[in-house]
């Protein structure tokens, strides 16, 4: 399981996290991705990074299913705290409670946070 917890721009954590997810997916791992805290902003529609000179990667999430990365979860509370709703997000994603994320984490062999 990969956990994205930082805002998409400002630091490279989420960007390099996504790079790692895509590469690990080619090694036939059972991958899930969880967005918590400011990590949920990575999913927001309508991002435009042209003025800050960095590569936007929101569209990459749409390509995840092509890599068999299909277990995507977003923390409901993190969305609510930031005034975001499911239809603000670039992909269809399962909105789950923090408790459910805890349960999912408990089932994992490996958790990598970004």
């Amino acid at each position, binding site marked *: 399981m990969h956990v994205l917890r930082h805002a998409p721009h400002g630091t490279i*954590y989420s960007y*390099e996290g996504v790079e*790692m997810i895509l*590469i690990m997916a080619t090694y036939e791992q059972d991958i899930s991705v969880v967005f918590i805290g400011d990590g949920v902003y990575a999913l927001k529609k309508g991002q435009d990074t042209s003025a800050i000179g960095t590569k936007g990667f929101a569209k990459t999430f749409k390509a995840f299913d092509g890599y068999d990365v299909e277990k995507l979860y977003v923390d409901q509370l993190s969305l609510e705290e930031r005034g975001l709703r499911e239809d603000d997000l670039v992909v269809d994603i399962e909105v789950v409670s923090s408790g459910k994320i805890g349960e999912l984490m408990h089932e994992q062999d490996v958790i990598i946070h970004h």
Partner: protein
Amino acid sequence: MNIGILVKEGPYNHQASDTAYMFAVAAIKRGHRVDAVFLYNDGVLNVTKLMDPPQDDRHISSRWAQFSLKHNTRIYACVVASKRRGISDDIVIEGADITGLGTFTEIATRNDRLLTFG
């Protein structure tokens, strides 16, 4: 217990590398085995030979080199993260290799625990 270590922050700027090092030493002292250390994000900067801190400070890359030699633990830096930051084969310490995330996938899955620092 077999342990893999992931370091995601660079030297000096962040405590992660120091904590990872101290953890690794303590784990081995307790009889555990540190299988490998993998460096990602700014973590790849921990193995450059070019760092030259003041003499009264710890030398973080030399310390990792000595650790690797003493415990026969390889240190791997992600190639994509390394290229981005100017880390190449000719400037990395003894005991470190630049490698792909396939290596990391193996480290993460073959050990009893993966511990992330940073």
